[in-house]
């Protein structure tokens, strides 16, 4: 599902163009400027684009990369090295190999060369929002993985509460959930901290290691 907050106005963005031949993309520059987007032509040195010294930001930068170039960003074949800004691909030779290279650098939209002005806003809209959508999904996947990792602490915490208070597992879970909400922590984060504190107290020589969720 797409996030409802779609980016629609690109005024103030800078498009960094990585192309060998400007002629087929003249209309792209004209149309980008109409949309309030600044245009920077990135020089190529030894077939590699020379990126700006300042870090690129998805809040203000977009890369437009010619798919006919041979790995101009030096990242083809290495998905982990994908750039963290939106990429729009320029398609000349429409072969699986060239399209795959564009996907590997993270292209979320394409423009056919020679570029026609009427589709530039559409490519920006789809490309930028596709990038943002993908970034949100990646963040959710990372968050899910982190929470999955945290489930073992939830189980440990439930067992600890059952042992300490004599309640059953449902009630132990309810206590932990209630307390985590009160402390505005995710259940997994709260349980990890709870288990950590519980284990630390149990390890103390004075033997005062007992803690109950909601009372510590």
């Amino acid at each position, binding site marked *: 599902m797409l996030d409802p907050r779609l980016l629609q*106005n690109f005024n103030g963005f800078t498009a960094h163009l990585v192309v060998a031949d400007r002629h087929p993309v003249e209309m792209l520059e004209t149309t980008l400027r*109409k949309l309030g987007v600044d245009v920077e032509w990135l020089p190529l040195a030894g077939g590699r684009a020379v990126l700006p010294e300042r870090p690129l930001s998805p809040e203000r930068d977009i890369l437009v990369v010619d798919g006919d170039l041979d790995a101009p960003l030096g990242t083809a074949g290495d998905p982990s090295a994908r750039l963290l800004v939106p990429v729009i691909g320029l398609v000349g030779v429409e072969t699986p190999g060239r399209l795959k290279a564009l996907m590997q650098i993270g292209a979320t939209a394409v423009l056919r060369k020679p570029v026609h002005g*009427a589709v530039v806003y559409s490519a920006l809209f789809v490309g930028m929002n596709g990038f943002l959508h993908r970034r949100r999904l990646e963040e959710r996947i990372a968050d899910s993985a982190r929470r999955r990792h945290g489930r073992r602490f939830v189980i440990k915490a439930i067992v600890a509460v059952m042992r300490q208070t004599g309640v059953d597992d449902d009630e132990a879970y309810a206590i932990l959930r209630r307390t985590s909400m009160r402390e505005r922590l995710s*259940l997994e984060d709260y349980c990890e901290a709870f288990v950590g504190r519980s284990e630390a107290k149990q390890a103390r020589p004075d033997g005062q290691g007992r803690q109950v969720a909601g009372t510590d």
Partner: protein
Amino acid sequence: MTRAATRIGVMFSETGPYSVVTRSMLNGARLAFSEFAEQGMVALEPVVVDPGGDLRRYSELAAGLLGDGIRHVVACYTSSSRKEVIPLFEKHDALLWYPSHYEGFESSDNVIYTGASPNQHILPLIDHLIRAVGRCGFCVGSNYIWAWENNRILREGLNARGGRLIAERYLPVGETDVGKVVAEIVAARPDFVFSTLIGDSAYQFFRDFRAACAAAGIDQIRQIPVASCSLSEPELEAIGPAAVDGHLSASVYFSSLDTAESRGFVARYAAAFPDGPAVSADAEASYIAVRLLGEALAAVGDDGVPAVKAAVSGLRILAPQGPVWIDPETCHAHLTPRIGRSNAAARFDVLAEAAAPVAPDPYLVRTAPRFALATRAPGLRVV
């Protein structure tokens, strides 16, 4: 030896559900042609064709004109007809002179846009509604791009200022059974109705809504005024005397403008077309399109598209609405936004106007929020 006249295509529907406006557009263009003929400044030969409101006929007729060697065509009212013919103009590298207000988000290099873009009609209307009418609206429109996009812009504009839309309702183009939506609005009691209905649907709506409000004891003009960006004088006449007054319209031209240029334009138009339809903003935009085209042709000496485009960028004319010139980057016109309220004489009283012509912003890059409005409630934080 006299130079042969340059043939100019003119394509407006003389029949169909919105022909009241398009016939006034045709008349506006004809008036400018006749003025050039009288002045002898440049020899133009209008080649007039009538698509009759049929979308397919627009393509066929445009292809015929362009295939016949014509390079400039003044044409189209609806966006759907414009979108239909633009590929042909791009293929032939010809120039479409599009003389109507529209919803923006387009800037073809083969079109000169002499009508208002959204920052010149809907944005000033939103300002006026918030300032003088209220913050709670109800949208009713004809089911096509003009209504969808204007409603989106209105929704964003209202939301940004703490206002809201109660509902958006759409009717098929040409639909005249408006009873259900009228009843819904009367029951909802918004501060205003925003109408993007066109043609016969709009005229029927104005009549039925006024009558329904009266039956419910509502003073429609004061309590639920209807605002729009497309209502013009010939349409007021089509609504009829029972419901003609009190409607708000955002436009760059009203025929009631009390300037020498406007008075002269209205008088010449009335003399040339005594049977109407009355002057409209789109008639003025058509007049402007032909004036700009003729003057550019006179300056260049032939009808080559690159030279005419270059020439038109340097022109500044004193139009009936005031100074008008074309922005070379977007090919849209600098125009003067105004807000009018219709009166019993089927004309508009001007309530507000910009101090100077406003630059076109067809993509709303200077005004639209970075992100579109969320269409569902934000998710709760899960802990």
